[in-house]
Structure formats: C-alpha cells, structure tokens
C-alpha cells in the first residue's frame, strides 16, 4: 500500500497554493485532510506528480456567522462541524450529518471543503450542501468566483473546481421562518459511506403547510442531485405522513442509478424513496 512517487509542497497562503497549482496544472493535486486522496494514492488510482498541502493555511479553517449567512472555511474538519455549538442552533443538520461520516479519527482529519471538491458520489456533504443552498467560493489566478451548490457537482468525482483553482470557503444562507432540516443515511456497514443519503430542509408557512422544500440525494447516481419532484409535491401541503409518502414516492426519476455488489440499481432506487420520506418527516419533526 505504497503510493507511487510524488513531490510534496506545503503552501503558506492561498496565493502561494494557487501559484503552485497553476505551475503544475494537471500534475498537481490538493492535499488537505487527505482522507479521500491518500486512500486513492495508496491504491494507485491517482498518481499526481505533486501534492500541494494546504492544511497549514490558517485562514481556511473556521466557522464565521455574519448576518444572513454562515461561512465555513474549506479546511474546517468534520469534527469541527460535529462539535460546533455555534451551528447547533441554525444548522443542526451539520452536526447530524457529521456524526455519520466515517469514524472519529476520520472526522478529525477529513475536511468539509475537501469532501465537497472531491465530489465522491457517496459523500455525505454534497447532499447537505444542495439541501441548504450552499454557495461555493473558488479562487484561481483570476480572482474569486462563486458557484451555487446546484451547479457545483458535475459528475463522478468531478466538481466545478478546475485545475489551478482552490475551493476556499462555503456560505450557507441563514434559514428564515419556521425551518426544519435533517439528513438520513443508509450507511454501508463496513466503509460507512452512504449507500443512499437524503438531506431535506423544509419551511412552513403561517398555517403550518410547507411553503418551500429542498431535498437532495447522494449515493444514488454519479453525483448528488436535488429531488425536485419531491420538493414540488411537498409545497402547499401539510407534512403529514401520507402527504410526505406520496411526495417521496416520486423520488428518483431521471437518476442514472449506480449499482454495485453491495446495492443494485433497483435497490438504490427503492432506498431513495424510503430515505426521502424519512428525511422530510424528520425535518418536519424538528421545525423551529
């Protein structure tokens, strides 16, 4: 389990990291927590010539609340999100989802930004980012650009972060009104990855009906996607078990399902409906 040879450079700042990534182009990979990348290197599924270690860039780690949003630095670890008292009030889904990622040692190293940029089809954060309407800040040689979570996940292991660019922080718009959210996951019993995971955020109007919903699934296909048919079916309805089950029954149309030895395409398609229902009901159950 020894990776092929590579060189290692530790960047002291975002600008230095961008410079190194520009210089090495496709030959370089960004190393943060390393808990997605290092396993790939050990299996020689990836063999970059250079690793640019960004873990020492202090500005990229931390959680900042400001007005209508919370900004999470890309290097913020899963454990930081699991433990954050600051986030428990507005975004309880972050702690709920973080607790389900890997194990404590993985959560001590793995990062929020790394997981999003890596875009693993079974990663947990992509579904949560879609449900929360996250905005990704990406820096390159030409400055910074912002990409909505809806446009960020491109394909299997492919996000919108281009060679020579760095995902630096993620904004989560502060929920307003009566909002509930939940992430429900069917974990692979050995790896802990999501066989299927669904994140849901629902907002209720004055009469207690659903005024808006964002529901997203990971693990089903090549990338995390919104379940728009479920969202549309929920709006205007009271979130009773019957109504939620009917909406969840529409989940998964249009997904090109991945099947493997653990879960067939048909099984995943079934799980998407089951977990869409559970996530929406759990979200409805914790509205505040």
């Amino acid at each position, binding site marked *: 389990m020894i990776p092929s040879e590579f060189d290692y450079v530790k960047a002291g700042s975002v600008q230095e990291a961008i410079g190194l990534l520009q210089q090495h182009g496709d030959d370089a990979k960004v190393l943060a927590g390393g808990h997605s990348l290092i396993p790939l290197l050990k299996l020689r599924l990836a063999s970059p010539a250079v690793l640019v270690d960004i873990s020492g860039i202090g500005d990229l780690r931390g959680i900042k609340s400001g007005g209508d949003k919370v900004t999470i630095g890309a290097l913020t670890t899963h454990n930081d999100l699991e433990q954050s008292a600051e986030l428990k009030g507005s975004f309880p889904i972050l702690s709920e989802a973080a607790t389900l990622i*890997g194990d404590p*040692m993985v959560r*001590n190293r793995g990062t929020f930004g790394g997981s999003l940029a890596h875009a693993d089809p079974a990663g947990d954060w992509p579904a949560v980012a879609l449900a929360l309407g996250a905005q990704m800040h990406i820096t390159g040689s030409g400055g910074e650009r912002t990409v909505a979570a809806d446009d960020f996940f491109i394909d299997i292991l492919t996000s919108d972060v281009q060679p020579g660019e760095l995902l630096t922080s993620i904004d989560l718009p502060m929920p307003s009104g009566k909002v509930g959210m939940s992430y429900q996951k069917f974990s692979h019993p050995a*790896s802990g990855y999501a066989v299927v995971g669904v994140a849901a955020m629902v907002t209720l109007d004055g009469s207690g009906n659903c005024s808006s919903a964002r529901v997203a699934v990971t693990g089903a296909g090549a990338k995390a996607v919104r379940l728009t048919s479920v969202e549309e079916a929920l709006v205007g309805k009271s979130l009773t078990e019957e109504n939620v089950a009917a909406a969840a029954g529409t989940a998964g149309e249009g997904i090109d399902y991945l099947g493997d030895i653990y879960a067939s395409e048909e099984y995943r398609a079934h799980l998407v409906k089951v977990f869409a229902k559970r996530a929406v009901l759990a979200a409805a159950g914790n509205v505040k």
Partner: protein
Amino acid sequence: MATHPISLTINGKGQQSSVESRRLLVHYLRDELGLTGTHIGCETSQCGACTIMLNGSAVKSCTLFAVQADGAEIMTIEGLAKDGEMHPIQEGFWEEHGLQCGFCTPGMIMSTYDLLQKNPNPDEHEIRHALHGNLCRCTGYQHIVKSIQYAANKMQGATVAD
C-alpha cells in the same frame, strides 16, 4: 526521489529525520523509529489499529504521510506509561480483560485517550460511538467498554471496586 527534512516531537522527545514524500507516518514510526506498538491492520483507514495522537487528536497514522507531521506533537502507545506505571487506560484494559490477542489494543487505547480528554465521563453509547473506527475481532467489545469505564472512573479519582 523527493525527500524532505522533518522535525517533530514524539512522546515528548524531539526528532529530526529526512523522509521520502510518500512515506506513510505509520511506516516512519515503526520502521525508522522502532515504535512498533502502533500496529498496521488494514492499511485502508478502516480498522484503527494504527491510531495515534497528533496535536491532541486521535488520527489513523496509515492515512497520513510522515511529511505532513512536520512540526507536530505526536503521542504513540509507547508514550502512555510513566516511570514504569501503566496509564489508567492501560490498567483498565488489564483489569477488565479488554483484550484477547491484543492486536487492536494500542489503537483502542489511543482512541480512548482522545475520548476521555474530551469527555471524561462518557456513557456507554458515547464510548461505543467513540470506538466506531476501531475494530476488534476477539472480544465482542463488552470488556473494552468496561475497561474504558474503569479508566474513566480512575482518572476522575473515583475508587474502583475490586
């Protein structure tokens, strides 16, 4: 071959080395420093046998390059006992039969160390949650949980029943 100088503190002692970029931390600890208490089980960050403390947090040393630990403070299982006296966690595993073959034990103990520094009085659910990344194929975990409860009690100064 790309090599890099590293300087770090391991079990309280300063250490300078030159390591190849791709050298895994667990191989550095075991093969270069002879600290073979840290075990290699799965090498795929699943089993937790290679768990060490890095800058105050438990991590899997098979999923870290030695060069990433430049400047770090590391504690391995060898750093726990002081002056020939077992650490209360080690004593707990001894007293409560927390091991059979012992292969997973160093990792179990280092994960426990991380748990008890963050949560000195965990309940059984919290203990099991904290051990999620450590696999034991002998004990069925019951005695490991008891060992950790013993250690938590002892570290809080409580009298431990015989």
